[in-house]
């Protein structure tokens, strides 16, 4: 088991390193001069200014050198010069072109908001979706089942941002059920944190649970046809336990795979949700950074975070497998 986790960690680390190289190459080897947006920031950009910034940013060095300097910044402090000199503490992901702040600091400022949204929303839609899916599978072919399937199709066909916008307009603005839908750090107290995020969570839970309900239902229908389910019933296990213990244990595995990836995407920031509910998370940050003039250090940081999060989520899913399915152990 330990060996398995170590091996998986090593390969996960490799993926992250390769992604960082790819991101680096994408921006610094691209057709546009990476110094250009920085140059554009302060009004007119003339060739002399551009040449100076290009030199200061080290863009005339070989790419390998540049990547080496960037990578070294992850473990030790760095001085970054464009115009003035900026000190960047390790782990240094660069200095934002627009705010002139350290990217790492800003990342750590914003990440809790995104995590809060993701954990609450993810847990909500996973639980709702799985329970609905089990119920639908258990009552396969009945009105309950058909109703659930039909409703999930309808909800699934509505774009997510429409649901979020409508929820915000009615529940928050119009009826005032959730007057305050902004993010409060948990350090300001659990109450404000919880109530501020409740509506975004509910929107996520409402829209995404339908996918999980349908998926779980399909898996459950298949599992309920298995011989070992009949064995459990023949032993005298009560129906609810047959469903939620014997059947769900087997049916949940592919559902968790889906959830692992979905959750990783949630952690890279739900752009619409953060925009509509004014949550300063990773998603909103990425959108702002992509506006012209583009904020390269921020964009590359968000991509890197996304890669790490997805790799870690996959790793956790695989470890989860080995706990739930004894046949995977020591694989």
């Amino acid at each position, binding site marked *: 088991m330990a060996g398995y986790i170590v091996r998986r960690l090593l390969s996960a680390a490799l993926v992250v390193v390769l992604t960082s190289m790819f991101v680096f190459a994408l921006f610094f080897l691209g057709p546009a001069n990476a110094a250009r947006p920085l140059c554009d920031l302060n009004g007119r950009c003339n060739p002399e200014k551009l040449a100076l910034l290009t030199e200061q940013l080290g863009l005339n060095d070989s790419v390998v050198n540049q990547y080496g300097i960037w990578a070294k910044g992850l473990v030790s402090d760095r001085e970054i010069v464009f115009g003035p000199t900026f000190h960047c503490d390790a782990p240094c992901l660069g200095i934002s072109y627009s705010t002139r702040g350290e990217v790492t600091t800003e990342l750590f400022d914003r990440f809790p908001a995104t995590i809060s949204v993701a954990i609450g929303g993810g847990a909500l839609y996973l639980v709702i979706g799985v329970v609905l899916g089990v119920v639908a599978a258990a009552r396969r*072919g*009945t009105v309950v089942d058909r109703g659930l399937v039909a409703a999930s199709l309808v909800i699934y066909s509505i774009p997510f941002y429409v649901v979020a916008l409508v929820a915000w307009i009615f529940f928050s603005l119009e009826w005032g059920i959730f007057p305050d839908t902004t993010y409060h750090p948990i350090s300001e107290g659990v109450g404000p944190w919880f109530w501020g995020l409740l509506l975004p969570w509910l929107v996520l839970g409402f829209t995404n649970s339908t996918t999980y309900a349908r998926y779980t239902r399909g898996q459950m229908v298949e599992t309920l046809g*298995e*011989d*070992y389910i*009949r*064995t*459990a*019933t*023949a*032993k*005298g*296990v*009560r*129906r609810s336990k047959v469903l939620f213990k*014997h059947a769900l*244990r*087997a049916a949940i595995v592919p559902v968790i795979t889906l959830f692992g990836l979905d959750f990783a995407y949630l952690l890279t920031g739900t752009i619409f949700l953060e925009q509509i509910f004014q949550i300063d998370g990773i998603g909103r940050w990425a959108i702002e950074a992509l506006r012209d003039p583009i904020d390269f250090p921020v964009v590359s940081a968000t991509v890197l975070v996304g890669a790490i999060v997805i790799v870690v989520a996959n790793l956790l899913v695989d470890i989860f497998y080995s706990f*739930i*399915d*004894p*046949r995977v152990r020591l694989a």
Partner: protein
Amino acid sequence: MSSPHVNEGFLSAGQQVFQPSAGEDPFLVVDELTVRFPTHDGLVQAVTDLSYSVERGKTLGIVGESGSGKSVSSMAVLGLHDPRSTRLSGSIRVGGREIVGADEDDLRRLRGKDVAMIFQDPLSALHPFYSIGDQIAEAYLLHNKVSKREAKARAVEMLDRVGIPQARNRVDDFPHQFSGGMRQRAMIAMALVNDPKLLIADEPTTALDVTVQAQILDLLQDLQREFNSAIIIITHDLGVIAEMADDVLVMYAGRAVETGPTKLLLTNPEMPYTWGLLSSVPDVTASTDARLIPIPGNPPSLLNPPSGCPFNPRCAHKDKVPGDLCTTTLPDLLPAQVGEDHRRRCHLPDPEVIYGTEVLPEIAPNLVEQHEQTREEETR
């Protein structure tokens, strides 16, 4: 196909397993059981008007092809059919309690306690994610007020009883870590953990190689002696029947077509389908030139069963029946010519003579004389 126990030729064998206990009501009484499955294509007539009974300490063998209704009827005894997709009529009484139409809570208390089932393919019938020990302990916990630790100890004890070596060390293994024979033993341990009064074994040895088959059958017999359980053994292997069963029920197209005490039925079958089953079993003492005679044709559709006798399209002897009785009229399950408690569903006027003069010489000439003998004794 056949187990090593048949090598003498089961036509002559058929041993008594347990002393008959007189005067006791049968533990299981199935009366005119009919099972129908409505489907998009029509009504599947899986079991029709099936009646049989089993006493404690006795073994009933149910034989028939796939789709003859043997498993479907046994699953009905445990109430395992989904009431929403099944139409059930008739009566099934287990220890005096009616199963047909019983509510789920009553059924649940019965399942695994009074009536337990051993399923055919133990790899798919055991949950892949739970250890063998947990699965056996769960069956015990469901019907006994004991701690988890006691249930686990009971699981070890049961594994030991069914002959799993080092049961204590193997109890936490998962099904995929067991061999086929051990999985079947574990399945049996799970079925027997609550000392059931009725054990239904659905093709318990089909997935196993012959040496393991023999061990499993011996095990079932030992355990029956000990607990005086009634056993229903479902199989298509007449060797298993000859070894295990006191009585036999031959099913075809969802109906009983011949029933009777094992020895009698195997030596004096009076229904051409039973002859077909006997003819298609290899006899290891016969010369390698001996032919196996398969039953021609395929099992009938249960959506549109043939009119008259369900076996008539495949029957080689129907021209011996006067008129078109075979294709128009379903024969009743009537007392056979030879033997008490022997019944068969066939229009043939003298099936025992046809068997002795036409069928037996083909499949086991050495037994013709013996057949004559028992026939005379039994008809006396």
